């Protein structure tokens, strides 16, 4: 960590390691007023735009790739305007996915580092699936499942661009031996199946956990959602707000103060 950050640490006891790996720039509480519940900002407009570029490319890649993967799915080439177009378009969308995903990666990786709570979470996976969140440790901005999706996608997108370039007939086929390309084709197909499986889990989780989708549409979540699913993150934000926003001193008289031991 840079000197500058360490200085801030000294100035602000809340900026400890846990905080830095959990709360991200832009995350903030918007207090509720009478009639409107409190919300918590989770993603800014650019991050959301980027997420949807990634999502669009991944779906387009899955559809165009699966079209060539199995004769039963060849009809999917129709979506892209025929076999020839599907063939040249797919790798270019791959490049778009790679670039947009890794911009996203640069913003999110820190908050996705694994910690001890993630192990506990993973060992109580039965409770995760059953939705018994009171039996799980309090989570930061991301839980172990989200982190698994994040790192799984990061690794598989690297594998897919690596193997994809090797079988990109138009520009790169002349650079590698045919045997290498056979390996690449096999691994590309396997990695594609793996990332589609992760993608299904990811989409399903965002539907199953009610109130999640709005994080990527409106950019914020309700305080209740944050309390239920990412309590540690919410507490960090609440603590931060108390330190930096004097007008919100009322917080000391709330239950939250007790939670934080303030």
């Amino acid at each position, binding site marked *: 960590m840079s000197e500058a950050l360490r200085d801030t640490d000294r100035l602000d006891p809340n900026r400890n390691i846990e905080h830095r790996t959990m709360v991200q720039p832009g995350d903030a509480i918007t207090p509720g007023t009478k009639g409107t519940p409190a919300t918590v900002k989770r993603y800014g407009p650019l991050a959301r735009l980027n997420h949807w570029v990634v999502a669009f490319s991944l779906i387009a890649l899955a559809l165009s790739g699966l079209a060539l993967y199995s004769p039963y799915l060849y009809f999917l080439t129709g979506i892209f305007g025929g076999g020839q177009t599907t063939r040249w378009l797919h790798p270019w969308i791959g490049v778009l996915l790679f670039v947009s995903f890794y911009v996203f990666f640069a913003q999110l990786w820190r908050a996705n580092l694994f910690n001890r709570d993630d192990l506990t979470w993973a060992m109580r996976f039965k409770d995760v699936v059953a939705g018994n969140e009171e039996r799980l440790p309090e989570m930061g901005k991301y839980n172990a499942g989200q982190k698994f999706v994040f790192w799984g996608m990061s690794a598989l997108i690297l594998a897919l661009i690596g193997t994809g370039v090797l079988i990109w007939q138009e520009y790169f086929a002349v650079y590698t031996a045919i045997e290498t390309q056979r390996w690449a084709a096999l691994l590309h197909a396997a990695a594609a199946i793996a990332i589609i499986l992760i993608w299904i889990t990811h989409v399903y989780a965002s539907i*199953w956990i009610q109130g999640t989708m709005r994080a990527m549409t409106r950019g914020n979540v309700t305080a209740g959602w944050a309390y239920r699913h990412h309590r540690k993150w919410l507490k960090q934000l609440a603590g931060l707000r108390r330190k930096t926003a004097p007008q919100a001193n009322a917080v000391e008289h709330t239950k939250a103060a007790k939670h934080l031991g303030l």
Partner: protein
Amino acid sequence: MFMPNVPVGQPVPGFSEKDLIKRSASSVPEPARRLTEVAKLIDISKCIGCKACQSACIEWNDTHPEMESFQGTYMNPHDLTPNMFTLMRFNEWTNPETDKLEWLIRKDGCMHCSDPGCLKACPAPGAIVQYSNGIVDFVHDNCIGCGYCVKGCPFNIPRISQTDHKAYKCTLCSDRVAVGQGPACAKACPTHAISFGTKDEMKAEAADRVKDLNSRGYKNAGLYDPPGVGGTHVMYVLQHADKPHIYNDLPDDPKISSLVQAWKGAGKFAGLALIGFAAVASAAHAVFAGQNKVTKHDEEEGEALTGKDA
């Protein structure tokens, strides 16, 4: 072998779509009849490397290979290309037994495998077809230019055009064979090193040639009709059939790579099954577990933590 000239009048094609036994990424109904299998026999011991076959192939197929520069051997162009379906590959080999130089000249090109790896790998329905007479043909209208056939072929034959992005290779002159003609290359060969006929005839002819070569001291002479790909419809008579690799890397025991088998085999279904299972499992979970909802208690605690302003 005697090749008749083109008959006058409009010839009726001797085989068509109805005679397909394999079609890439799709299936074909069992054909009503089975054509006699044909084959082209290339007798390497008779070849003088004149490349008349290459010229005839260019002319008949109306391809336009680029003018290239000298590569240090008589081989030209430098490799098979989308415009060069057959290529004479030259190798100067010293026979360790006689210590004599032998000039091994192999006419490279599609082998028209009985079990074609190109067809197995191709994802586009009908871009590669096999007729019951053994000819493996590329149907350019259906080709998408992905290059999977290149990975599937054990002989490194198909080439993808950078102009129209379609795959090209020797057709065994299917258009000529259909009207009772032999391949253009066979017709042009001045030494009859290339012959064409039914596969049985060609095997018999090869047996004669092998006997002759044996009698002249080539004790390992033999026919190259590799069983690993179910036999081929282009066969070689080799002076040294015990080591095909000396003929510019002709594979000793070609078969469809196990990587291609794995890529195009049962794994495909396993992949689709996994995707289907994940989708069904998610739906089932939604039905049985119900949505994970924020409770009244969560809301109150959340509000308390965030502190109402008003």
